[in-house]
């Protein structure tokens, strides 16, 4: 997930250990709530905390493999792409995450750019 954003665009959000393994935490931002996920293999992903189906808080779902199941109606979202898996359709906007020795940062600009592009 490490991308080309310049350093000043990264915002520290905390330590990887603040997130339960196979779990998620939220980050409040001016652009809305971001869900930050940690998988069993310690990969970290971030995306908007809104299921494309009915707006369910994805951060509250069960994390399995590199997917999360929305707590409201069980839509399964890929943490890697933000896309709904299986027969469902829909996509969540992902946010770039950087993991340096456990210190996590997100690239807020990546989200703002997406908002601007709409």
């Amino acid at each position, binding site marked *: 997930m490490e991308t080309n954003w310049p350093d000043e665009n990264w915002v520290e959000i905390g330590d990887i250990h603040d997130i339960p393994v*196979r779990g998620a935490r939220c980050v409040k931002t001016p652009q809305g709530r971001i869900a930050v996920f940690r998988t069993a293999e310690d990969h970290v992903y971030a995306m908007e905390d809104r299921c494309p189906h009915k707006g369910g808080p994805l951060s509250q779902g069960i994390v399995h493999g590199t997917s999360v199941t929305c707590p409201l109606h069980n839509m399964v979202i890929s943490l890697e792409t933000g896309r709904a898996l299986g027969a469902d359709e829909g996509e969540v906007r992902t946010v770039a995450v950087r993991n340096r020795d456990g210190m996590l940062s997100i690239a807020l600009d990546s989200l703002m750019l997406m908002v601007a592009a709409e």
Partner: protein
Amino acid sequence: MKQKLVIIGNGMAPGRMLEELFEQAPGLYDVVIFNAEPRVNYDRIMLSPVLSGEKLYEDIVIHGDDWYARNGVTLHKGAKVTGIDRVAKTVTSAAGISAAYDKLVIATGSLPFIIPVPGHDLPGVLAYRDLDDVEKMLDATKRGGRAIVIGAGLLGLEAAYGLKRQGMDVTVIHINPTIMDRQLDPPAAYLLEKALTDRGIEIITKANTKCVLGTEKVEGIELDDGRIIEGTTVIMAVGIRPAAQIAKDAGIAVNRGIVVDDGMMTSDASIFALGECAEHRGICYGLVAPLYESAKTLADRLIGGASEYKGSVVNTKLKVTGINLFSAGDFAEGEDREEIVLRDATAGVYKRLVLKDNRIVGAVLYGETADGAWFFDMIKRGTDISEMRDTLIFGQAYQGGSPLDPTAAVAALPDDAEICGCNGVCKSKIVGTINAKGLTSLDDVRAHTKASASCGSCTGLVEQLMVLTLGDSYNPAAVQPMCKCTELGHDDVRRLIVAKGLKTIPAVMQELEWKTSCGCAKCRPALNYYLVCDWPDEYADDYQSRFINERVHANIQKDGTYSVVPRMWGGVTNAGELRAIADVVDKFEIPMVKVTGGQRIDLLGIHKEDLPAVWADLGKAGFVSGQAYAKGLRTVKTCVGTDWCRFGTQDSTGFGIRLEKFMWGSWTPAKLKLAVSGCPRNCAEATCKDIGVICVDSGYEIHFAGAAGLDIKGTEVLGLVATEDEALEHIVALAQMYREQGRYLERIYKWAKRVGLDEIRRQIMGDAEKRKGYFDRFVFSQKFAQVDPWSERVSGKDKHEFKPMAVVGMAEAAE
């Protein structure tokens, strides 16, 4: 007056004979059975899976106690018959029980052959014949060390595999150059030996045991060539001999076994012999299929029929998980015989057909056994194969042009082709029964036809017949897998968790070969529940495998806020509690307050961050979580009973509160709602609850398996008990039985339908010991479950859950 039928022995053969007899002529005989074993009739073919831990004894019972009761059979358990008086026509047991007979069936089975080498009587030398032997072997596995199995026949190898699975080192000793030499030719034996060696079982062939070593107990064995193999247990599996002594003593003709004619009659016209103790046309059979065939003949004879048993061709399958092996008929080489062989070393496939006069006389299949039934059928029929000889070895799919799909192959079988070898069930019987009785599930077909009900190796064929008969309306998956992560169904997973002692989710996934690295949102909560239920003291609840509601102890709503329901014991509250709720509503600006159907109050629209503070305030007023979110005990709804009501017969409010205080906190497969009504007017609506009580003058009528949701269903009556204490014990035991057997998310009414109401009544109402066991396990589990989750979180548990990880890019003022 009814005739008296006495049976010595209670194995599978007489069990089957009685089934036939009761079906065709119920009530013809008064039946008395003497069983030397202290138990009911169970499936001996399945002892190996019990040994390997893949099944439990309960799974292999064929006739439970209720079957004997229903058919009016007197079963003397643990009663070994010591004498037959043919003049007085009586039999007598060692304990002095005697019974008179008009017809006597000797079905004493066989005895394991113990090689009389020095040391054969040391403690630690075991046979492999019945459940007692299996239990002794399982005991031995607890001590560990090396088990030495003498004899690499069917039983010996299954024992070796089971002991290996149970964690022992295993060496198999075999006197001949190749293993299973009565059923396999050397190339198949080689492949089998290799597969077993790969599983860590050491095999020594051409080895003759000289003596068993040890002074107090087994320490090993010595072979003829001087080799010494150290071990703690020796299993003798070199063969069986008919248990015919009792007949011999009574002066009945005995050769190797008790000699019978084609009507299964011995030299005494009132006495018959059946099963492994009998010798028919010079052959003593040791496999179940021929015994079942002869059982049918005997049942007919006892009714007055004239059917004749003409002997059987037998086939064999080895029950070692992951090894496919089939052999049938005679495959010795001979001048007048030809053979067709197919080998595929990479795939580990070996097939050999032995032909004589253009007919198949023997078949050995290793690695790929799907055509076993087809070849076996042709052996029995003596089908002329000259037309298809070129393609015969490739199997049924390759006959007549393009390959057939498996269903078409089954469709092509003749009506009288045998599908289930164990129970002798042919194709037309299965198809006919499906149509006549409107059967739709494999379990139904098993119950009505017995096909695939013994060893289960023909399950695939039976299912194909179901597809053929029912079309698309039948889902061929015998067991609905739990989810896409596994092929196993819920029941298998539950059984294996207990049998293999799996105590963590990763252990379950590793040992049961999950197809995904960490499961999915379907299987993880189910596994978490099963482990919590089965290992209450040892399992550490996996928080991340719980649905959000059970993680944050509140109910998520469509907008991501939560609702909170405090417990109101039995639906009773007071001014202080209501005032505290009102204060909380004001303080946190809770937008909606709603009275629930379970007699309590729901506070809706609470932000997740506020939950701990809401709970703290509620906790100060004495409230605990109502677990309105849990797959667990929810509410106990009550009416006012004898406290106030002029019709009340018992203290329904008090009992409801007592039940709720006893059972709160317990996790169950799906939500569990109770109610107690003080009289049959039933104001607490107990007759549509998961468990309900209707109080009456004479006591407490316990109901269960109601539904008033997706389905609407009145309850069933479990039974009537006299006192409140008894009612509590019965209800708790019922809940525990459901906890232990229910599939995750399966409500109690669905579970009850699956298990059978009679079975539940039998265990909870009729079997005090079982009931006590369930009750005690529930009480034990409650020691770990009754912790108020709200106060835990008020004290700081799972803090991270209720706070954002970070707040970024926002002005302070925005907070």
